[in-house]
């Protein structure tokens, strides 16, 4: 089985109990190609969700939905914005340690040239693996057009 180290940037607008929040997440994930099942994407940081699909794009779509589902579940229970922010930060503080070990090993394979972005898809982008996982949670009191940002695609950590 081949592992691919990924960096992802997801941005969600989340409606909660009396608030609207903007969540900008830069996370790490590990994709695996398994024959004949297809692709599996496991989160590394935050570390507690995963998704699969017959193709990489299908797995990506399911992984993206799984991330948003966690945010929506957190919003359901949060009594206010501060409670939502605290829970999202706790969610993001968790790392899947075995997956992180495999992620680091996979980065080494990318750097040695044994794995390339083209193994995933033509013109799949790359980004330095040193990019740290971060999350920004902002209360949208006065929505502005400059909060609208097109979401980047996933990138291979190199």
């Amino acid at each position, binding site marked *: 089985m081949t592992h691919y180290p990924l960096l992802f940037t997801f941005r969600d607008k989340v409606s909660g109990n009396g608030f609207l929040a903007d969540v900008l997440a830069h996370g790490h994930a590990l994709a695996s190609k398994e024959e004949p*099942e297809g692709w*599996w994407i*496991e*989160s590394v940081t935050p*570390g*507690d*969700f*995963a*998704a*699969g699909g017959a193709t990489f794009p299908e797995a990506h779509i*399911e992984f993206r*939905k*799984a991330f948003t*589902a*966690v945010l*929506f*579940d*957190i919003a*359901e*229970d949060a009594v206010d914005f501060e409670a939502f922010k605290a829970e999202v930060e706790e*969610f993001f503080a*968790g790392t*899947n*340690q*075995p*997956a992180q070990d495999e992620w680091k090993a996979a980065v080494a394979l990318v750097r040695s040239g044994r794995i390339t972005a083209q193994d995933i898809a033509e013109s799949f982008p790359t980004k330095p693996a040193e990019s740290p996982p971060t999350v920004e949670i902002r209360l949208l009191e006065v929505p502005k057009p400059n909060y609208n940002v097109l979401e980047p695609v996933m990138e291979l950590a190199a």
Partner: protein
Amino acid sequence: MLQECARGYTIKRKKHRYWVTYKATTFRGLSTGEHGSKGADVQIGLVRSLIRYLEIDLDCAKKHLPILKS
């Protein structure tokens, strides 16, 4: 499997996912089977991730879920 291999765990059904907590760590991504989870392969993949993230004893888990041996 959780009853035997993750004693003291709790599980809560949320609107979109189950949250499983074990030793003060919560896995928030276990599908309820209603949105996006398309079959046994997906569910067993999620269980593998849950086991890794919650650091559940893999040998114990394999005893209860033989499919993990493959």
